[in-house]
């Protein structure tokens, strides 16, 4: 109890600082989420339409995905230096994998019968993609997006180790000066942001499913 009071006191005392860290954290994550979302979506669509490209693209994305985040950041420093840009690049590389995989799986999962019907009725390839495949894959794509958003928000904490901003700064500082309340305070806010984002996207996912009547 004593500990929680300490954390709350900390929030009150340094609310401007925390507000700034939250804003930085969200900005950092959001940029990476948008970049990974767009790149992952386009790449996923492309490999779904060019079956031969799927194994290498998914393989490479998978390799990046399994590199521990701290070492990916380390490897990027010689190339990009330290700071926010490097952090955004690393987070984007991570985020691409779940987006590509789910976009690909979602599109490939659309029933052949439905696609044949659409093609037989005179749809162009573009119309099949935008009117049939993507809307039908949307549930799976959003599940991937949810996954990616939560992951990006939590991995963004590590970005402060290479001099980027965000709530990781509070965690890092807490560790260095052995201030557990400060570390907890930062972690808790990250968890909270991730949780709220997940709830919002989950709500969106549910609404899409309900709209379909199934």
């Amino acid at each position, binding site marked *: 109890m004593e500990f929680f009071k300490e954390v709350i006191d900390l929030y009150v005392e340094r609310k401007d600082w925390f507000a700034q860290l939250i804003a930085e954290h969200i900005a950092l994550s959001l940029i990476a989420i948008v970049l990974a979302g767009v790149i992952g979506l386009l790449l996923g669509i492309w490999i779904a339409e060019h079956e031969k490209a799927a194994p290498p693209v998914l393989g490479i994305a998978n390799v990046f995905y399994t590199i521990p985040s701290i070492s990916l950041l380390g490897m990027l420093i010689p190339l990009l230096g330290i700071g926010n840009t490097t952090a955004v690049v690393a987070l984007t590389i991570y985020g691409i994998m779940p987006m590509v995989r789910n976009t690909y799986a979602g599109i490939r999962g659309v*029933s052949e*019968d*439905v696609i*044949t*019907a*659409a*093609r*037989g*009725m*005179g*749809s*162009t390839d573009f*119309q099949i993609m935008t*009117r*049939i495949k993507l*809307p*039908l894959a949307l549930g799976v794509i959003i599940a991937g997006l949810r996954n990616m958003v939560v992951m990006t928000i939590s991995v963004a904490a590590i970005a402060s180790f290479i001099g980027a901003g965000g709530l990781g700064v509070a965690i890092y500082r807490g560790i260095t000066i052995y201030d557990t309340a400060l570390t907890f305070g930062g972690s808790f806010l990250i968890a909270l942001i991730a949780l709220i984002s997940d709830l919002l996207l989950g709500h969106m996912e549910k609404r899409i499913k309900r709209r*379909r*009547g*199934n």
Partner: protein
Amino acid sequence: MDMIKLEHIVKSFGGRRILDDLSLSVREGEFLTVIGRSGCGKTTMLKMINGLHQPDSGKVFIEGQDISEIDIIGLRRRIGYVIQNKGLFPHMTVEKNITYVPVISGRKDKEENRRLARRLIETVGLEEDMLNRYPSELSGGQQQRVGIARALAADARIMLMDEPFGALDEITKQAMQEEIAALKRKLGITIVFITHDIREAMKLGDRVLVMDQGRILQLDTPQEIRSNPAHPFVKQLVGSRVE
């Protein structure tokens, strides 16, 4: 005039010959039923007509035009295409399903499309309040009716149907058979109808096409097929018919 004409169509998939020098004509306003074992090439033949498959050699003519020389997308929009009930778009309401072809053809006037959907849902014997439902909320028979309404929305002169009633129970199936026969009489459309049910083929077809191994075994009126089967397989098929 011949509405549909196939000339010496050859098509192989992976070294296996699916259609073997197939030639046939369908007259305007004719109801042609096609029957044969699974893998006999009947679906491949149907997909030749709307260009979903291209022949290795041979030509397909629709209303006298070689389809390899015309805009295939435009042609498909003028040909109704009905497949088993899985073919409806699950993420679209019945209305959106029915007006799909007009919409992708650029006819986006909401009021006009709504009127079209209302007219067609009535044509296939469903209630107007079905328009706002999703396919998953309909019974198999209702889904099939929507599939037909959707095919009619293109003002199609030709309708291609690939085992449209295959998944329906016997009673619904018979009702749908009456329905499609009546529609054909009323609208004068040309229909190519694939089935694996010989009774259905004999009941609906002006002519019946019996296929095996990518070839025509017999193409004739139901009476002729019954009284003069041209091949042991045809005889066996007709013989299995429950009187």
